[in-house]
């Protein structure tokens, strides 16, 4: 069984996000990039399946420019014992793809690479769309199992525990030819070892473009996008809190009740 893991490069979760002048995106100058944290759970799950000899091989796939190679190498370094293959999907024709266009590119790559089980993060923490894995599953006509916090693979089938909120957990069975999106709690992602980093530096990363994937360039990229981004804006600043002055606690409570009734109108 061949496992595929999608790795997306995102700004580090502690980044201070600033919007650029023409509101078309964020300022990336001071951004430190990392693997999408939810993808790290998918990566760790994939590594463990190969290390546990449940799967035969691991393929890391990332849709992104040359700068995404550092993230792929981070993935190779962590998974060094599973000897992962790595593919970067990049073509001028891919630029400006919407989630559906991205899903078409990735789905074509999954087919070309002969991936059985595709593991991804449940969403990427940059724009939190959570759309691409679902679309990939639909395009490939495979089952999708989302928000997985426990995963067992045996033979041709997998059993997954899905986080449903409110303490509810769904237990789902599926053939292994599926798309599984991974949530926090699935595992504890390992960090890269020094030997892993050194080996990853020498690793080859294949680059596949539209022609390699047999994709009609008219179905991807900005021209094919049905969703477009209007403008980027930061959320409005929250108004500052109010400190209630008063002679004593009783007076302050009285004033608080008055404000809740007359100003906030919640009483």
């Amino acid at each position, binding site marked *: 069984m061949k496992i595929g893991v999608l790795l997306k490069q995102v700004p580090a979760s502690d980044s201070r996000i600033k919007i650029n002048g023409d509101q078309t995106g964020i300022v990336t100058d001071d951004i430190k990039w990392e693997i999408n944290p939810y993808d790290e759970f998918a990566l760790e799950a994939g590594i463990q399946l190969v290390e546990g000899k449940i799967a035969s091989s691991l393929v890391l796939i990332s849709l992104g420019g040359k700068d995404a190679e550092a993230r792929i190498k981070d993935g190779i*370094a962590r998974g060094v014992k599973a000897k992962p293959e790595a593919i970067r999907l990049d073509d001028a024709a891919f630029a400006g793809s919407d989630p559906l266009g991205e899903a078409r590119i990735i789905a074509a790559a999954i087919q070309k690479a002969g991936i059985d089980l595709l593991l991804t993060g449940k969403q990427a923490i940059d724009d939190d769309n959570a759309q691409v894995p679902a679309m990939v599953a639909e395009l490939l006509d495979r089952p999708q199992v989302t928000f997985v916090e426990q995963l067992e693979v045996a033979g041709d089938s997998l059993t997954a525990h899905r986080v449903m909120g409110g303490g509810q957990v769904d237990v789902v069975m599926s053939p292994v030819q599926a798309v599984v999106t991974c949530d926090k709690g699935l595992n504890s992602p390992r*960090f*890269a*070892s*020094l*030997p*892993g*980093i*050194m080996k990853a*530096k020498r690793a080859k990363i294949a680059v596949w473009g539209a022609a390699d994937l047999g994709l009609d360039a008219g179905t991807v990229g900005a021209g094919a996008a049905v969703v477009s981004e209007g403008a980027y804006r930061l959320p409005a600043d929250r108004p500052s809190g109010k400190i209630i002055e008063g002679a004593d606690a009783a007076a302050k409570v009285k004033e608080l009740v008055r404000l809740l009734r007359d100003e906030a109108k919640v009483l």
Partner: protein
Amino acid sequence: MFVDTETQADLREAARQAAESILGPSVKADDESETYRKDLFAALGEAGLCGVSTSEEFGGLGLGYSEYIVVLEEIAKVSSSYAVSVAVSGLPQVILAAYGNQAQKEKWLPGLAAGELLGAFALSEPESGSDAGSLSTTAVRDGDDFVLNGTKFWITHGGYADIYVVMARTGGPGSKGVSAFLVPGDAEGLSFGKKEEKMGMRASPTVELIFEDCRVPASSMLHNEGQGMHVALSALDSGRITIAATANGLSQAALDVAAKYATERRQFRKQIIDFQGVGFMLADMAADLEAARLLVRKAAWLKDEGQSFSTIAAMAKLKATDTAMKVTTDAVQVLGGYGYTREYPVERFMRDAKVMQIVEGTNQIQRLVLARALKRKYEA
């Protein structure tokens, strides 16, 4: 060489992550209870931190001291005890790489480089410290064996190590009568005495070794008979770079805490870093550390380039460890009363720093090395 290469930056980040996650959780408790954990050392080995400069052929990373110092600095920022542990276990690796024969290398290097085996270095004795050539532990040939008798003092990893490089007298008095041996930790006739109760580096075990008719095969000798002091001193030249790098990590950790505190702490409605008395202290800490770091980088670079580095290594050890003492002491001062409590790590940093002015050749010995070099150069 003035800033990290891409590889060095990657290793720094990985070493930082590994050190924080492996050592961070127990660093305070282990200092207080004087506990060394071999499983933590093994975890550092698993992360690839224990054989940076050992060749890939023997399971190391095959990198230079320029990379090794980056890794040690990051470990020391979390725990100088374990930075010393990695550095000390590195000494037998350096010695084996330079002076071991193929069989010795094959037997010991892969385990040491992987952190599966712990190494140690035994030179000092109760009556022989800076005057190392006067050591009195003996190794007497008996058939195909050597029989060791004597006592070694201040041995890091004593009782924990799997392999000790031991300097013992096989010939007449003085340095030329000393040979180096590989002695396994479970050798018959090797026992362990008192574990020292120390001011700092309390997670690093310092123990007395006792050799009583300890028999090792003649094939345990490193290099040639009578070359033991040469082996030891060349290892110490390299060791000085590692101690200096450890000191820099400690200084950086202290500076990080002190500078952050001085920007958060307000008195008289000002951040205390804006008071010249505090701000200038932090400025000196940063400048001294940067100077020490450049010296250590130069020493490592010279070693990697295959050039003579003894003098610069002595300077690096002297400056980096004196700087660590000053920076950690000043960090306590910047934090005031809080710095003196065990709630903040700077008092530990200050205690840990002191011994680095003493080990791997006291800083007086470093000055002696430098003065002798000057004398040789300027004497007509």
